[in-house]
């Protein structure tokens, strides 16, 4: 069997007495869409934050493409292809949508120590930004300040920024959180499209979306993965039913 693209080994993160990540292990293969589900407070966001580097684990290791990145900075991880979208939209509110995406392009190109020419005169950068904005369906909202976008549109913008990074691994933390039915169906279609070209770790509560998109599913409960398998396996797994799916259905 081939080596995993992302590997989490015995990760532990404690907040005071609480182990939000409790000896967690996880493998994501190259090209797969791997869903991470689990009840509220299970530690999904905390795990994503450690993968991205925003939080340092207390114990354990993270490997990306065979390299130990446990101690690598967020910025280095981002430049090596790891792109995260936040559960609570995190954008640059005073920039337009396209400027948000353009900055992600600029970051990737690493030419931010330029002092005289206006950034928006860089045609190649703006074209790439526009492409990302159009891909997520924000084409006609490109010139609107991010702070004036609707909640759903800000979720789309998050994704546009992620794509503008040309990532090799997408860490998506509840991309449909707080979206209406229509918006989340649209986001699901978009992700279905993206999954052909990207490796994705997807945290999501919407079970329809998860079972439609995921190649494999891992279930996180109390900071630990209790099961990993195909969507059908997970649906049939009694532990999972007891720990998680049960809650949500009643």
């Amino acid at each position, binding site marked *: 069997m081939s080596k995993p693209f992302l590997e989490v080994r015995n990760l532990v993160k404690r907040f005071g007495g609480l182990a939000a990540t409790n000896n967690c292990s996880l493998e994501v293969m190259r090209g797969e869409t791997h869903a991470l589900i689990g009840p509220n407070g299970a530690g999904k966001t905390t795990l994503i934050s450690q993968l*991205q580097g*925003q939080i340092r684990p207390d114990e354990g290791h993270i490997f990306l493409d065979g390299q130990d990145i446990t101690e690598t*900075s*967020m*910025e*280095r991880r*981002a*430049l090596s292809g790891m*792109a*995260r979208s*936040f559960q609570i939209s*995190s*954008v*640059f*509110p*005073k*920039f*337009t949508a*396209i*400027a948000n995406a*353009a*900055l*992600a392009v*600029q*970051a*990737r190109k*690493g*030419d*931010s*120590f*330029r*002092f*005289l*020419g*206006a*950034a*928006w*005169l*860089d*045609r190649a950068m*703006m074209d790439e930004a526009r492409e990302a904005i159009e891909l997520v369906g924000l084409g006609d909202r*490109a*010139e609107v*300040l991010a702070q004036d976008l609707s909640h759903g549109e800000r979720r789309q913008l998050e994704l546009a*920024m992620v794509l503008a*990074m040309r990532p090799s691994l997408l860490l998506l933390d509840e991309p449909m959180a707080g979206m209406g039915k229509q918006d989340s169906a649209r986001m699901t279609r978009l992700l279905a499209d993206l999954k052909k070209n990207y490796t994705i770790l997807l945290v999501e509560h919407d079970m329809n979306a998860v079972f439609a998109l995921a190649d494999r599913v891992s279930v996180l409960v109390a900071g630990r993965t209790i099961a990993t398998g195909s969507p059908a396996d997970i649906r049939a797994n009694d532990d999972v039913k007891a720990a998680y799916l049960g809650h949500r259905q009643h």
Partner: protein
Amino acid sequence: MADLSLINPDRQSRLLASAQRFVPALVLVVALVGILAYAQSAGDTFLIRVFTRIMIFGIVAVALNFVLGFGGMVSLMHASFIGVGGYVVAILAYHDANLEPLMIGPFAFTGTSDLAILLPLAIVVTVPFAALTGLISLRTSGTYFIMITLAFNQMAYYFFVALQAYGGEDGLQIINPITFGGLDLSQRSTFYLFTLSVLALTLVLVTLLVDSKFGIVLRAAAQNERRLSAIGIAPLRYKLLAFVISGTLTGMAGALLATGQQFISPADMSWSRSGELVVMVVMGGLGSVSGPLVGAAVYLGLELILESWTEYWHLAFGLLIVAMVTLLRGGIADLGTLVPWLGRNVSGGKN
């Protein structure tokens, strides 16, 4: 970046948008030339002195706003940069007048009264000072940043108070006329034009910087550092460089202040002066490049007028500032929305 249209990015409109950014600065510079012409024809040297001072503080306000309005760093140590730049001029001019070299360790420096040497020297001294204090201050953020910059301001203040050889608390007089190469800057109108040139260069520089890739990163850092890191840019280096640029421009303004007053003292770099600078910037408008220059003019103008009307001018002044800041949320630059060619907001803070 926000309000310059990218909808229609053909070459001509991009160049036009590029040029339009300089309109407010150009209008202000032309107005300042006009004021000089008027003052000279009316023989009003007081007016020349007042506006020279306004321009010097305008440079400081524009420089401070680069880190404050665009970079989100509320520095309460900018008066100390004024002091450092001012003392470079005053100390070397003092040695020039005394014909005694300045001894630093085994090195002897002859004094000079030439700004062509003194301005670069002010830069050479301010850069490491700003870099060191910035590096330490930027380890913190928010209220802690404000407090630590305030502490640095006080340290610099007491350093010069303790410097008895150069007047201590009483400050240091500049006796020789200051020149710039062959220009005699003790000529009021010459010094006015010289200061105006430095101001114009500052406005052009900051206008370019805030829309450059560097400036975009700086403005992004002020909005959301976590997101900036997540896309692969570590904010610290950018904030530090902006702080050094701002501190250095302020140090140069300090050199001009000492030249204009023929004097510098610790009072020019007190922490309350740092606070006044922040007020000028906020009054002028955090979102625009040249707004703070107008803020400095209004602040210093009001101070002058109220001072002559009533001895309770501090109270009246305070009330006026509160009224202004609450009524004009975006500062005086907001007035410009009534006069589009004046207040065009280049920063993109609002639409």
